[in-house]
């Protein structure tokens, strides 16, 4: 169990899964750069994040709901948590997360949603079997089942996140094609890494000739 002091940002899971170095740059080094994608995401979320509630007969909707889990050591906010009325007249939470763009092949968005579900389970002492991701470009919801595999991946990611952010070391960059879509490329300078003595060689080349 973690204490409140140890809680990390739920959204950091996504950064970790995308790239541990990006995660460290954001959360250890507090670097933040905006590009078109992050700006669009921010505007999208500004619209969603007007806290409040809405209700229809069988669905209550809560916007921008604060969440936390001491078991995973995470806290954050859910864009939307719908409470679905069940036949036994209990309410079942159903988290919905807004994303710009389109569904991704990897687990990053699902893990973030699953972490929200795990927070809800801990806070409300219930089981959350399902949620949804809403993709801005598709303008429709993709349902997500919180199965055993996704829960395990999420728990492992939370543990790795704590390990990374309890230190002070930013992992070395590894250049790959997706670096080109990363808003941190100009801060991270991924192509400078990995070559030994490159500054030494550069200095010799530039000054000793």
């Amino acid at each position, binding site marked *: 169990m973690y204490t409140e002091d140890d809680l990390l940002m739920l959204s950091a899971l996504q950064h970790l899964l995308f790239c541990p170095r990006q995660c460290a740059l954001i959360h*250890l*080094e*507090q*670097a933040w*750069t*905006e*590009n*078109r994608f992050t*700006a669009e995401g921010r505007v999208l979320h500004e619209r969603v994040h007007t806290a409040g509630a809405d209700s229809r007969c069988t669905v209550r909707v809560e916007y921008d709901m604060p969440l936390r889990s001491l078991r995973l050591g995470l806290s954050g906010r859910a864009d939307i948590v719908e409470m679905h009325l069940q036949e036994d007249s209990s309410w079942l939470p159903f988290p919905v997360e807004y994303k710009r763009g389109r569904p991704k092949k990897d687990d990053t968005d699902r893990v973030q949603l699953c972490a929200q579900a795990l927070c809800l389970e801990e806070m409300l002492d219930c089981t959350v079997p399902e949620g949804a991701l809403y993709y801005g470009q598709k303008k429709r919801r993709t349902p997500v089942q919180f199965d055993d595999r996704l829960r395990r991946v999420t728990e492992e990611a939370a543990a790795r996140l704590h390990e990374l952010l309890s230190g*002070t*070391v*930013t992992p*070395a*960059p590894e250049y790959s094609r997706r670096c080109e879509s990363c*808003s941190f490329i*100009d*801060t991270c*300078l991924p*192509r*400078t*890494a990995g070559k*030994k*003595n*490159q*500054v*030494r060689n*550069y*200095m*010799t080349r*530039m*000054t*000793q000739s």
Partner: protein
Amino acid sequence: MKKHLNTLFVTTQGAYLAKEGETVAVRIEGKVRLRLPVHTLDGIVCFGNVGCSPFLLGFCGERNLTVSFLTEYGRFLARVQGPVSGNVILRREQYRRADDLDFSARMARAFINGKVANCRALLNRTVRDHGDRLDSEAVGDAANHLTGLLKSLGRDRPLDEVRGTEGDGAHVYFSVFDHLIIRNKEDFFFHRRSRRPPLDRVNCLLSFLYTLVMHDVRSALECTGLDPAVGFLHRDRPGRSGLALDMMEEFRPLADRLTLSLINRGQLQGKDFVVSEGGGVRMKDKARKTLLTAYQERKQDVLLHPFLEEKMPLGLFFHTQALLLARFLRGDLDGYPPVIWR
């Protein structure tokens, strides 16, 4: 998102800057004369009696934009910035390394290497371009002397020896600087550096440009999360931006080159300056505008970064160098690579 790298220079006396939505509105005599979206700017520099609303200052702080206030003549007065940026781990590393004199000497060598190499490049280039119009032998000798200094900087040396080499280099370089002026020699001449006040037109230009470069280097360091006050070559002194001065070394020849081209292309004339009774020289408004425009245009020039081998506008080089320094302190690189022109 590529930074736009525009600095808003406000020189109109009595102008007032205010926030209007996401824009800066420049009011002169109560009328809005200019509106600029804040996201296209990376800094605001106000000269003389120029006011600024607290809301605009706050907004700029939030967006990592530095607002500097200078006197009409370009002397630095104050700077307003937002909350200290969050990179405490990087700053601690910077402080620890700055306490280590061997490490500091190594950093100092890198900065001075950059400066001396760029001074040499400027000398060689002028000889190449205008060799027939100047004493190319004297300038060539000075360049060779600098080559010797670079050799000695290639070796490990204690901090005070690096300082000695720097002094040597500056002396040799400035001793031939007058030769590089090939037009309007009766108005533009250079005997030695004078700053407070500048005693000739060339010193007046150099000082003003150094202030501008300083503003940019400082903002770049701050944006990266480094503490501009804690330097390696320039040791701590209250009120002094040691690290900004360190990193400025490699960029000084850039200001020198711009000064020379303004003079040698005849963009500035003797009459653009006012010489006071005491001998101090200052620029007239028109000259200041010419210089600011030239500096802005220069920053838009796209050049190949010699270490990263990527093309970028010259204005972005300040940020890139601050980043490379941060990345070196954080262990990603085997040294700090100053920008060296050839």
